[in-house]
């Protein structure tokens, strides 16, 4: 087929002008994800992304928005440096108005950049207590560890697990857990009998297991993430630590559940009742099971909710004839406050924290079961 010069020039002009035209019409809502997609924490990136994808499928099927959602993906690598670089790109190059992220270190590095550009950032994975007050544009759809640890204490008292040893990554998450256990255990007549900090890249735990054994705890709590979690559990069990092992919501990932040594592991999460019959939860659980042939985890719930929240806010703004920007999204969130999400109606406080009850789970036969 021959293309004459005039057609070629006209096509080029349309091509060059298209993005400007699209922007002028507000053609797409640019939404970003800043998840660890490579490295030892990449498993989380895959989990978070699967949940966002399901939410997008539902939003598109419902034709909820007039303008489509343009999803831009950046790899945080689970590190603060990766978080800062990725957020800068989403803010300055992609011009995202709403970014979903995870990991405490990543969130703390990304938040100042996002706040400067007035981008709403939603965390569904990081649980460091500092995330509660990072910025008016930083919201959490996951309970933080200063809510998770206190919820575990009555169960420890009931099971007479008073002497607790802690293995923790020396970062805001780990230090948050250390602080909560130090402050909370005396209240139930218990004590922190040993605390062992580790760098995020450590892979050998036989020596730490020896230190834990010598402290003779009733239970061992670990605060880590990614592949390191499985390494800690396996090496503790391999090296003669037979006591009850405890952790926070980070333990609820498939690779931990599949580990034979993780049988009996107790971990806290937000309340997740997949038998609820409200339409949002029912649809999420049914479609998740059909698509992935397994039950969703609370991380899936959180990032589905984060994506759905954007659609609900943008829908409200579109109906009101307002532009969808970080500022207007925040105004809309503060105006509406309560949203129909997976797990029931979720209500945000002034700081952008979604309030949710906590439950205690135990891994039995490779599956998480609620025990309290």
């Amino acid at each position: 087929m021959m293309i004459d010069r005039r057609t070629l020039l006209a096509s080029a002009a349309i091509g060059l002008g298209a993005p400007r035209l699209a922007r002028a019409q507000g053609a797409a809502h640019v939404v970003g994800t800043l998840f660890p997609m490579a490295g030892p924490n990449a498993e989380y990136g895959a989990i978070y992304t699967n949940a966002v994808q399901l939410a997008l499928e539902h939003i598109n099927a419902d034709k909820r928005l007039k303008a489509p959602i343009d999803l831009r993906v950046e790899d945080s690598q689970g590190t603060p440096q990766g978080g800062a670089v990725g957020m800068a790109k989403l803010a300055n190059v992609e011009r995202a108005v709403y970014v979903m992220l995870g990991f405490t270190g990543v969130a703390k590095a990304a938040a100042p950049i996002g706040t400067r550009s007035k981008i709403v950032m939603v965390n569904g994975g990081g649980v460091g207590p500092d995330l509660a007050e990072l910025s008016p544009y930083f919201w959490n759809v996951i309970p933080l560890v200063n809510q998770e640890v206190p919820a575990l204490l009555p169960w420890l008292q009931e099971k007479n697990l008073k002497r607790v040893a802690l293995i923790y990554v020396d970062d805001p998450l780990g230090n948050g857990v250390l602080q909560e256990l130090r402050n909370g255990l005396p209240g139930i007549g218990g004590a922190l009998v040993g605390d062992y900090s580790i760098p995020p890249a450590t892979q050998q735990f036989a020596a730490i297991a020896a230190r834990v054994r010598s402290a003779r705890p009733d239970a061992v709590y670990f605060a880590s993430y990614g592949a390191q979690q499985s390494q800690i559990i396996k090496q503790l069990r391999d090296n003669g630590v037979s006591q009850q092992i405890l952790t926070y919501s980070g333990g609820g990932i498939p690779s931990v559940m599949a580990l034979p040594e993780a049988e009996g592991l107790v971990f806290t999460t937000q309340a997740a009742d997949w038998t609820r019959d409200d339409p949002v939860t029912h649809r999420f659980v049914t479609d998740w099971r059909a698509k992935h042939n397994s039950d969703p985890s609370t991380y899936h719930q959180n990032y589905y909710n984060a994506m759905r929240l954007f659609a609900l806010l943008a829908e409200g703004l579109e109906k009101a004839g307002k532009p969808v920007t970080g500022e207007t999204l925040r105004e809309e969130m503060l105006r509406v406050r309560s949203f129909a999400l997976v797990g029931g109606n979720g209500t945000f406080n002034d700081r952008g924290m979604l309030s949710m009850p906590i439950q205690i789970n135990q891994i039995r036969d490779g599956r998480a079961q609620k025990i309290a």
Partner: protein
Amino acid sequence: MLFLQLLASGIQTGAIYALTAAGFALIFGATRIFHVAHGATFALAGYAFLASSQAGWPWPVGCLLALVAAVAFGLAMDAFVYRPIQRDQGSFFTVFVAAFGMTIVVQSLIELAFGRGFEVVNTSLTMARQVMPGVYLADVFWVAVGVALALFILVTVFLNRTRAGIGLRALSENPELLRAYGLSSRRLSALAFGLGSALVVPGAVLTAMTSGLQPAISAQVMLISLAAAVVGGIGSLHGAALAGLLLGVIENLVISFVDTQWSAAAGFVALFAFILFRPSGLFGRAVVR
């Protein structure tokens, strides 16, 4: 008792480090190629063993599969990456970037095939039993130590007693003279890559059983190999093996004196100390300029 336990854990960790570092040192010593993709060889061997285990095949088949994967990758790197670069007078950095790129390719392929999560080969060998009050040892301790010793004896005999082994040692010194004696530097280079890659297999298999695998494991392996190669004396196989053992023992023993946070850092403090006070390493030769 805690000291004894930490020493035992250190020896087990160190034996695996020694096996990992020795291959890197052998390749660098013979070819002077900074084989950054050695970590990828380790990952490939570990995942090959894992695949075999998941398929329900017996462990000797898994080890063989790991050996084939490691050696094939090492030979392919030599033939299709390093040799073409060297033919075009590629610099050290060209080699480094090419090898680094291959490491990322291998990592991505592993992620595609096995997912991004943690994987481990379950075996009763890793379950420790109390051998005296406060000291726990698993059978894998004896396996690691035994395999490391046996392999180093075999490799030492090969390097010192065989024509190919002596040629390998001479390769880095004077390739021209090698040719005069009728030896092919190309074949010897392939031998170095094959042997060096094969040496990684026991470490990879033991790691798959003890601390487990994840696709990004290459970086950690390279870090240890590099540290051991520097502490042991660049290019010295025995130095790297001894340094690997030393790093493992230091990493474990140090936590009886300092916070557990400093365990991994302690090995690198030793590395800095060597760079400052004995730059030629344990077995390296000092060079007068």
